[in-house]
């Protein structure tokens, strides 16, 4: 009796101690998480506040409360000499076309490797994996020279068409097919006499929807954010994308500028993305890992 009582008392105190340490660790975890969230968000908060203030108000130093100049800053920005709306539209067109071509043809390439047996298949697959990590910048020199020889500089073709050959998206699609594309469905369609291209378009593509959504978002964002290549290719003012316009803002004599307008432009580049991200965050945060890393 005595021994078992002691035993119970001991395990109780141990359990108490454990709950205490769990409480302490939980408190620490929340503190760190809140601090990091603050560190991630504070910049955008300051950006928002400053975008609502006039140039004169901005000169007097920072206040944590918004002012009333947001609409005026925005209209000044839109009426100004920098074609920001056009720039956003250009970025949108390039990113949307790139994302569409990239997911369609990457799925097609992955399907070609996944569903068929042919000579050299292993070699091609290994080759695509091997070139996956090569940065686009290392071939930029040859790229811009070839584009100017093909008379494609200052057009969107060099910014859109290369998205068709995207090894990373291909790899993701291939991984996804391995676990989510039943061969029996394809067989059944073949027996029904559907052509291979029709099978791909009407059966494979719909089955790949979740993977396509994730990859379309990531390709869109990568193209949207790209500064290096468009900067080398595009030269006319009305064709420039948002990142190039931002770089030009930095390059100009910005000290003489209406700072309210400068903040409005940065806000114009950042906040639409944040809104879209919050709407799609479920797919994005989930999509980072799914198929990306094999574990």
């Amino acid at each position: 009796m005595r021994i078992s009582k002691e035993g119970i008392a001991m395990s109780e105190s141990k359990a108490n101690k454990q709950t205490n340490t769990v409480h302490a660790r939980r408190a620490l975890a929340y503190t760190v998480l809140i601090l990091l969230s603050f560190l991630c968000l504070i910049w955008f908060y300051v950006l928002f506040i400053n975008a609502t203030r006039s140039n004169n108000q901005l000169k007097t130093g920072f206040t944590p409360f918004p002012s009333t100049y947001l609409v005026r800053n925005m209209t000044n920005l839109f009426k100004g000499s920098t074609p920001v709306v056009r720039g956003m539209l250009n970025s949108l067109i390039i990113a949307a076309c790139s994302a569409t071509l990239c997911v369609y043809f990457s799925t097609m390439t992955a399907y070609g490797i996944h569903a068929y047996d042919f000579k050299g298949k292993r070699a091609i697959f290994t080759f695509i994996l091997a070139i996956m990590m090569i940065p686009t910048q290392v071939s930029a020199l040859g790229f811009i020279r070839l584009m100017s020889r093909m008379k494609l500089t200052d057009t969107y073709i060099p910014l859109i068409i290369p998205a068709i050959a995207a090894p990373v998206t291909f790899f993701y699609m291939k991984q996804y097919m391995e676990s989510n594309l039943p061969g029996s469905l394809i067989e059944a369609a073949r027996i029904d006499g559907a052509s291979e291209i029709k099978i791909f378009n009407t059966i494979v593509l719909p089955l790949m929807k979740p993977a396509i959504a994730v990859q379309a978002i990531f390709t869109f964002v990568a193209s949207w954010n790209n500064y290096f290549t468009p900067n080398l290719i595009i030269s006319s003012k009305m064709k420039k994308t948002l990142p190039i316009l931002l770089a030009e803002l930095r390059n100009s004599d910005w000290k003489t500028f209406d700072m309210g307008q400068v903040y409005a432009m940065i806000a114009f580049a950042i906040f639409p993305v944040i809104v879209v991200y919050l709407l799609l965050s479920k797919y994005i945060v989930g999509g980072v890992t799914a198929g990306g890393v094999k574990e």
Partner: protein
Amino acid sequence: MEKTVHKSNNVNKHNRWGYIFLIPFIVVFVIFQLIPLISTIYNSFFENYMSGLKHVGPKFIGLANYAKLFSSGDLPTYFKNTMIMWILGFVPQILVSLLLGAWFTDPSLRLKGQRFFKTVIYLPNLIMASAFSMLFFTLFSDSGPINSILVSIGIFAKPYSFMSHVWSVRGLVAMMNFLMWFGNTTILLMAGMMGIDQSLFEAAEVDGATARQIFFQITLPLLRPILIYVMITSLIGGLQMFDVPQILTNGKGDPMRSSMTLIMYLNKHLFSKNYGMAGALSVILLIITGILSMIVFKVSATNENK
């Protein structure tokens, strides 16, 4: 495989479609990546640049461009700058990500609001790097809000010129890289941690191991492959560091080119049409990333065989 034998006629007829479906990828790859790459390598052996309005070359000069890159000290300096800013961002990134990953996956903590925190820490990754960098430039400028706050709460007597000190510029670049990538790394590491056999943790807990012991004795060793993956891919990304320092310092890498990265240097050569040097620099970058990705390849291959 049995299927192939079973209906070999049927399948053989279809298999040529494998080639057809690969055509778009291969054609685009050859035109937009392979030919440019070969032409880049070819150009690296030629003297070919603009001197004012005069075009010098192209003239074959063997490895002279490479020799010049090393002997002028430019390449070592910019490589060093790139690595310093990468390390300054990567070390806190991997430590914070490990910590957060361990907390998020710890069943005894049962953290609430995980989706909220994950959404917030991933957010900076999607922001246009050029816009983020321009934002930091305005926030940290001499008359910007950060200086205004720091002066008003009495940390500084007068505004600190963040943009004209070596370590504050490097620090800002590293901080932006940290903010943009720690959410991504946390999510990757979490996936790795959740892949670990739960019974190992249970057994350790029964044996009376503390959370710290479990982390260092079980989680960390089992995460080794994914940690190596994260580190090398981050290093490859770090070598490509461009947008953030380019916009922050207006392409100059100030002060005294102390924040000039390899790709910023490449970009400069491309704009001044110094094709020989740009080519040599590209080839060196290609070799470095080639070696690094071979390591990733090896690590993930041995991982698959397990």
